[in-house]
């Protein structure tokens, strides 16, 4: 067995190992409970949720593309109260087993982020922290519109910071990463999750229509990986707060690249949809790699990339 210490601290969220799940690709956790030992993960991040329920976008919401997939779910969610009713008991129990729960917060405007976060803080004492999704490519207002400029992103974070004293993460859009990272760090973010899906487009060339119900959707999967690793590295050099690396992680090696580029933790996305136990396989592979590097603590490898 490996003797590498795997525990990491992501902006105050103490994870027993660096592997977590990407919002929207792991439901609310319980969906995987019969398929794997969820409590072996360092953390899970729950699907984005707003103060009030959102219906999400019409079908079709998914199209497969080479090397990945495109979705336009549009943050369908039952609202914070519905979320807590549905999944609160499960998540509280999971937190009790030492897997940190990060609840993702959605909104159409700064005010909506704040009111969702206030509800979360009130109703989810078991949540280790909250991730602000200012980068969803599939909602017309809010989402990516709130996360594509340093000013807009910082505004949301500043307002949220005022109402929340638990760790606040920011899910970053895949644009202007260094500028936005600096802006949200200054605004009080405790950690960054990099990156959300990249907006893409897939057209049915016979019907001349989008293969989704909206013109564009968000890309996930291996096709993102080299782009996401680069963005993590850019942010790592721009800020001091820790980073969760996300994008196309299918293997421990993919996760290791994020760690070397400066991520303290990683989150598995699409891989869990294809293969529900993927995150645990990735954790095992990551641990074996860390062991092979001859370190005693995985934190020694964070940002160990030699340019």
């Amino acid at each position, binding site marked *: 067995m490996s003797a590498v210490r795997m525990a990491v601290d992501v902006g105050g969220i103490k994870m027993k190992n660096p592997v977590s799940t990407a919002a*929207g690709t792991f439901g609310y956790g319980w969906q*995987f409970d019969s398929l794997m030992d969820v409590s072996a993960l360092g953390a899970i991040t729950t699907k984005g949720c707003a103060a009030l329920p959102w219906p999400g976008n*019409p079908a079709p*919401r*998914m199209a497969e593309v080479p090397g990945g*997939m495109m979705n336009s779910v549009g943050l*369908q969610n039952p609202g914070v109260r519905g979320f807590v009713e549905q999944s609160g008991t499960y998540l509280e129990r999971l937190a009790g087993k030492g897997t940190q729960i990060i609840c993702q917060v959605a909104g159409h405007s700064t005010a909506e982020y704040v009111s969702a976060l206030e509800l979360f803080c009130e109703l989810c004492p078991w949540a280790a922290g909250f991730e602000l999704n200012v980068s969803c490519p599939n909602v017309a207002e809010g989402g990516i519109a709130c996360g594509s400029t340093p000013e807009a992103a910082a505004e949301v974070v500043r307002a949220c910071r005022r109402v929340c004293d638990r760790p606040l993460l920011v899910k970053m859009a895949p644009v202007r990463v260094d500028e936005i990272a600096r802006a949200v760090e200054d605004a009080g973010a405790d950690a960054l999750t990099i990156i959300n899906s990249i907006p893409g487009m897939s057209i049915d060339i016979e019907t001349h229509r989008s293969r989704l119900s909206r013109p564009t959707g968000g890309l996930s999967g291996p096709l993102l990986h080299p782009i996401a690793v680069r963005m993590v590295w850019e942010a790592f050099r721009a800020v001091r707060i820790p980073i969760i690396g996300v994008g196309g992680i299918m293997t421990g090696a993919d996760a290791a690249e994020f760690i070397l580029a400066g991520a303290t933790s990683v989150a598995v996305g699409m891989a869990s949809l*294809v293969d529900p136990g993927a995150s645990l396989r990735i954790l095992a592979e990551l641990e074996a790699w860390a062991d092979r590097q001859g370190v005693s603590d995985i934190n020694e490898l964070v940002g160990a990339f030699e340019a």
Partner: protein
Amino acid sequence: MPTPSPARVHDFEVVSNESIAERIFSIEIAAPELARAISPGQFVNVAVPGNAMSLLRIPLSYVRADIDAGSIVMWYAVVGDGTRRLSRMKPGETSTLLGPGGRGWSVPDSTTRALLVAGGIGVPPVLCLAHELHERGIAFDVCLGSMSAKTLVGAEQFRYLGAGTVCVSTDDGTAGLCGFCTDPAADMLLAGGYDYVATCGPAPMMRKTAAAAAEAGTYCEASLERMMSCGFGACGTCNVETTEGMEGACMCGPVFDASKVVVW
């Protein structure tokens, strides 16, 4: 917490895989535990080896399960890269699937006579239901539609399972009536005698069938198709707009109470 999906990851081995009509294949796979667990109207999400650019599994209904042989049979149309690769899998080749997924048919105990309306590659889950009706001793008639005689599947099997009438329609008239199977279906529903309708096929077909059933005051279930990423309730990509809001086809469906469906 809601009930999680009954799906598990199963290894499977191809037993046979052969063309049964134009671009339609029947595959039998060995997966003993799955064969025991699955019930009519549920589906499996199959990993097809061979193209590393295409990562997602392929959702497929099944036609029948043989618990003794430990196998299930699926019929599928070759429509794209994934089903093309599936059609090239040879006996003995192995892969994995996730299943059983979702909620199947729920034919009320009180049912005395059912009408089954199936079109195109919507036949498999309906034929699967016919097996159940046969076993439960519930009488049924079938309206079966297809583009043409060349792509028609299931007529024999429905007859073999004791269907009262099997009314075949083809778009081009090369077999049975010329036209859509929803026309005879509407006539038969109006004529009465049914207390349950099941339908699967192209969206317009199901919509019409559901409307005819509603008109006749008969309870109707429909098996819907959506693009699916996970098949076990984790991603939210398989939504169906219902009178009760958005519901995931892979968990709340694929079989829905047709009167609840807003967008087919």
